[in-house]
């Protein structure tokens, strides 16, 4: 109580307020942004290592093809997401039907699954004899195709969510007005609603692309299960592969390869984000031309129904069934499990995720407050863009960069756990802050101002007025960040080999060919995630009921 009062009193002091903000900014820049991209400086300081790679045709080709695979897969995945995500967003926002809430929950499920788990599940589903027999159709899935199928699963929800968020804000009356003016539904949607979509498309594109580019655990596991982890690489899976063998990753050439891959991926990802934002803002969908006949034809009869049918079928066959296939293992006989290791790794995972989320909130709140309330200021815009940086950078590169940065301060392997936490803070921070910014922008700024004119000190205005209004967004952001941290493999491996989170433990099991054990661990992890999310929902649901 007295502590709160002291904070209240301190918050009256303008210097203390700006001091706190400056502190949050400094932590953000020095602990999150700079370490994330620090590896770029190694390009100059350790050029001789990189030079080794460039002079070795074999390694050079592997590195370049890995980077190419990463970017081309991310691109294809994102395009597919847009094509099937758009009609899905439509169904979720504009249609009312029985079971919509179930569909809504199902959509988010893949986000709660650690990607390592998805890797096992997807490969099991698509490859016989345990899964569906594609050879009967004369198809066999190349590693490239398999990675695409895997990445669609965990990027798809992001796309649908960002598109629905924008669609919800677009007044359906625009379409209705278009139709009363004589346009068919298809033409109305294409010429009126779609052009308003650009912002959501840009967000969705960047999110999905970055997520696919960044994904490590699931990809590496899928490739391992297909037995091609030593011949087919994506950028992050190459680094994972190197980390699996100490003699590999400590060699000069491979150090150079890691630096090269990390720098190329970081720079390309950032450039790409910039270009996409600029491009989508300028891009003009050719909506001036209309083809009324075609428009009318596709708006009538079975076509719209067919479109919805395909959308739902895609969701079920490509996204949901492969994700849940892992539960088939529950029918297998129980394997001999090393519960001790599993429990320790669960404790580490939850500990890392919990600490990361708490830090995110503590330093993310002042940042979100500033950005949301200074959207038009120069500093506000710069920070707004900077916050996205850790989200765009592939986490493997981020982790590698981070370990080089802190390694420079002499933080050796005894600080591994701390560094892993730092890494997890970096890539979860944007998730929390983005959610907060969105929520704060919705709140009338005069609410806090009036509270202060009524005698509330600035901190009281925040804690008694603003925070209770946005607390569901804080919780939503925290859940997102928590599950993301729980499922992360790439950042963890590239920072340290000694911190055994659950996804790392699962990866090791798969490497040793212990698929059933890996699957059981996955199921335990998923179950814990759901219990946690359900628990939070119950607690917050009860609280909001009491408030109402």
């Amino acid at each position, binding site marked *: 109580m007295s502590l709160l009062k002291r904070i209240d009193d301190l918050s009256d002091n303008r210097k203390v307020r700006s001091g706190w903000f400056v502190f949050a900014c400094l932590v953000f820049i020095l602990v999150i942004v700079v370490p994330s991209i620090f590896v770029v400086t190694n390009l100059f300081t350790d050029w001789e290592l990189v030079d080794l790679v460039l002079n070795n045709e074999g390694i050079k080709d592997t590195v370049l093809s890995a980077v190419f695979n990463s970017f081309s897969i991310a691109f294809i995945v994102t395009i597919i997401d847009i094509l099937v995500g758009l009609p899905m967003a439509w169904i979720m926002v504009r249609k009312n039907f029985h079971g919509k809430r179930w569909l809504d929950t199902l959509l988010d499920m893949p986000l709660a699954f650690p990607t390592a788990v998805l890797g096992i599940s997807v490969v099991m589903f698509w490859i016989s004899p345990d899964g569906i027999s594609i050879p009967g159709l004369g198809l066999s899935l190349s590693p490239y195709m398999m990675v695409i199928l895997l990445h669609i699963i965990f990027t798809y929800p992001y796309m649908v969510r960002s598109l629905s968020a924008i669609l919800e804000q677009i007044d359906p009356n625009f379409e209705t007005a278009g139709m009363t003016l004589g346009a068919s539904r298809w033409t109305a949607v294409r010429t009126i609603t779609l052009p308003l979509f650009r912002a959501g498309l840009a967000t969705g594109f960047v999110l999905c692309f970055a997520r696919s580019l960044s994904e490590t655990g699931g990809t590496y596991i899928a490739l391992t299960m297909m037995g091609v982890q030593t011949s087919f690489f994506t950028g992050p899976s190459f680094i994972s592969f190197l980390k699996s063998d100490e003699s590999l990753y400590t060699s000069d050439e491979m150090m150079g390869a890691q630096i090269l891959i990390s720098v190329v991926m970081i720079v390309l990802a950032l450039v790409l984000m910039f270009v996409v934002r600029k491009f989508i803002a300028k891009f003009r969908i050719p909506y001036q031309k209309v083809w009324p006949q075609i428009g009318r034809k596709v708006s009538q009869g079975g076509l719209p129904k067919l479109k919805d049918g395909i959308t739902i079928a895609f969701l079920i066959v490509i996204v949901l069934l492969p994700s849940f296939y892992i539960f088939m293992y529950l029918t297998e006989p129980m394997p001999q499990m090393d519960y001790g290791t599993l429990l320790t790794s669960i404790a580490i995972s939850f500990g890392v995720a919990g600490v990361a989320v708490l830090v995110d909130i503590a330093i993310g709140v002042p940042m979100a407050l500033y950005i949301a309330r200074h959207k038009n200021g120069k500093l506000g815009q710069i920070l707004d863009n900077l916050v996205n940086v850790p989200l765009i950078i592939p986490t493997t590169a981020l982790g590698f960069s981070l370990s080089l940065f802190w390694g420079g301060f002499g933080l050796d392997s005894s600080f591994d756990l701390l560094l892993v936490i730092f890494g997890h803070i970096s890539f979860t921070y944007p998730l929390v802050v983005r959610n907060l910014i969105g929520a704060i922008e919705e709140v009338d700024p*005069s*609410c806090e*101002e*009036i509270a*202060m*004119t*009524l*005698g509330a000190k*600035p901190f009281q205005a925040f804690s*008694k007025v603003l925070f209770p209004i946005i607390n569901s967004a804080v919780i939503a952001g925290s859940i997102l960040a928590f599950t993301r941290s729980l499922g992360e493999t790439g950042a963890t491996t590239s920072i340290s080999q000694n911190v055994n989170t659950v996804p790392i433990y699962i990866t090791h099991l798969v490497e040793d060919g212990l698929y059933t054990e890996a699957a059981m661990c996955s199921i335990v992890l998923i179950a814990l995630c759901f219990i946690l999310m359900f628990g939070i929902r119950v607690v917050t649901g009860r609280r909001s009921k009491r408030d109402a």
Partner: protein
Amino acid sequence: MPEIVLDNVSKKFGETVAADGLSLSIKDGEYVCILGPTGAGKTTCMRMICGLTQPDSGRVYLDGKDVTDDPVDTRNATMLTQSYALFPHMTVYDNVRFAPQIKGWAPEDIKQVVRSTLHMVHLEQKAEWMPAQLSGGQQQRIALARALASGSKVLLLDEPLRALDARLRINLRKELRTMAKQMGVTCIHVTHDQDEALAVADRIAIIRDGRIIQFGTPSEVFDDPATPFVATFVGRSNILTGKVVRSDGESTAIDVAGTVLLARPSPMEVGEEAVLAVKIGFTRISKKQEEIDAAYFTGTIDRVLYEGVTITVEINAGGLGLISSKLPNRKFDDYHAGDIVGVSWAPSKASVFRVPPEGLEKELKLE
């Protein structure tokens, strides 16, 4: 002792000047309206008083104390905005209780204050409702109750009635004044609605381009505007420009396009360019021959606008342009388009101004 003093305050937002050496002093318990066009700096003026905006220069005094650098929460000046800003997650009761609780009053006092203010705004039966469940007028009254319950001695109303429909606005503006007077608070009410300002204010401050251009009672501002702008902004005026041909203790005579018109006495000298402003309600017209003979000039009725309680007759007066006259509704059947009428006014009802240096057109522009 004056309760609120703004002493030569200035504030710029980038290139926009929101306050330009603005000075204003408001007496204890006074109900003052700040009236001005959009973007004149009305809201900034209020925000500087309660501390939400910091002036670039100049001082702010409350109750004789320099509060320019004091934080918002210590000033005891409460604001009420057009969005009401009721805390959406709290019941009506909790909203009203907010300030007393924050200020740490005794629980029984809090209860007492909340009950009595809710009673005052006739909404005690809605205490357990959420703000979103209330109508606009009810929300407005809750916001008022919340402000009154805070024990603040200064109440800042920023266009508090803007979001309400016309009839409710007229009822509530009376209530606002009554309650402010009852509670003995000093009240500043920002509005761009001149009728609202004239109806509720003890004094009206006309603000434009970040400066106070006139500060006086409603009748002073209406009858004796300080500038041509005030003349047209508070109640419509007919504006005419010409040359002074005679200026003495009885009246000022101005030659406008060959017609000599009379206005109240002024310090202006013969030969000077002058602007004459006369409220359309003070502009008399008549069809009777003897009155046409005595009139300043004649004109043909262009059209008659029906407004309910009043009508406005627009007269084409040749070289003098279009002249309007506001009349009571009962005269509606007397005047028709095409009628010839004589136009006149009592010289004491017409004001005379020097031509503003930047030109009359710019002076009269609203934005």
